């Protein structure tokens, strides 16, 4: 990726990339698979193409979706004390704030832990399923991918699992704690999410979406 150095001719916007974080202009060049192109000014990774990245992202998004569904409905922790057992699912954790003035927080937690991750996975599958099969992108693919990107800081499943870990240590003195299947589903989800984010090169995805657009 070559920078354009300061000269004030009229420059045509075609074949250029502006770094999204610092606005530096670069001439677009094809980057070999496995290599990455960084912004000369701020070091932001511009392009990092990978082999069959589309299929990998599709598979990982589908896996994450299934794990998420399992994680929601199975109990994630079981407490045993004095012959009594309580099971808690993710829903119970969300509903912990459902009393009185705490109600808005319950909605927010439900969004952060359940709704936002699910919406993201569905949006990613919608974008990548036709593309990985070599078809044209689906009709609303740009909008769906934009939504997925916008939601990414608000998808907090991996933070939730760390919270479960801390809570686990807080209650071990009080009762016997058993780890439920949903806990492992969420752990798997964290790994899959990390893999998905490393495979995904946003600028490449956007370029592919544009190039394969049906005319």
């Amino acid at each position, binding site marked *: 990726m070559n920078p354009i*150095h300061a000269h004030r001719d009229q420059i045509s916007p075609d074949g250029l990339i*502006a770094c999204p974080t610092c606005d530096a202009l670069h001439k677009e060049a094809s980057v070999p698979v496995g290599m990455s192109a960084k912004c000369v000014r701020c070091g932001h990774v511009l392009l990092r193409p990978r082999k069959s990245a589309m299929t990998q992202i599709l598979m990982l998004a589908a896996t994450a979706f299934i794990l998420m569904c399992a994680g929601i409905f199975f109990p994630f922790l079981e407490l045993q004390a004095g012959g009594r057992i309580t099971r808690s699912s993710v829903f119970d954790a969300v509903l*912990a704030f459902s009393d009185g003035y705490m109600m808005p927080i319950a909605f927010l937690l439900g969004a952060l832990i359940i709704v936002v991750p699910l919406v993201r996975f569905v949006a990613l599958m919608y974008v990548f399923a036709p593309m990985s099969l070599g078809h044209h992108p689906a009709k609303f693919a740009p909008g769906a991918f934009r939504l997925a990107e916008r939601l990414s800081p608000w998808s907090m499943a991996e933070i939730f699992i760390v919270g479960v870990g801390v809570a686990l240590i807080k209650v071990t003195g009080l009762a016997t704690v058993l780890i439920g299947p949903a806990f492992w589903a969420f752990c798997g989800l964290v790994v899959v999410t990390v893999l998905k984010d490393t495979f995904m090169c946003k600028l490449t995805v956007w370029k592919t979406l544009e190039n394969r657009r049906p005319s």
Partner: protein
Amino acid sequence: MENAGKPTPVLTARAAGLVGCSRCGRVHEQGVASCARCGSTLQSRDTLALQKVWAWWLAGLIAYIPANIYPMLRMIQFGRPHESSIMGGVIDLAQHGDLWVAFVVFFASIIIPIGKFVAIAYLAWSVKKGVQTRDIGRLHMYEVVEFIGRWSMIDVFVVAILTALLQMDFIVTVSPGIAAFSFTVSVVCTMISAQSFDPRTIWDAHERDA
């Protein structure tokens, strides 16, 4: 880059009379309303960014004060009520001997929020004043703030999980305190504040320098 000590004279989209998309990097002529590739609204620089940053920052700071004063969770053990604030929870954990966990909670709910308030304020102030730094420290600072801010939610999640687990029929009952509410509000406000920041303005100070 070998000449990291000196800003390289790199042409920006704005200096070339063009507009770069901050989402997908596509370059457009000036005056184009939305990106032809990804459909985002095009703006060479977000001129209102600093106002939004400061507004959300202040809202977050106001909410952060009650979050530290009031109890985060209310615990009833053998009929005796016990309330603990954020710092109280950390001390409880440390006294239990779980120093490592105490450190994680301390880091997530005290160090990160305070560090974030300071970092966002410094970034916004230095961009406004056009403070010239010779390194890319500020950009890294911005990236760290944006990445790490969400992790403050740990404490709220812990309260939610404890409340769900320890219900009425147990020897210990836990319910969330009012600080859980204000802490959540504070985290959300500071996240929006950090997202409102236009990182390209950090580099404009460099441009003036060059």
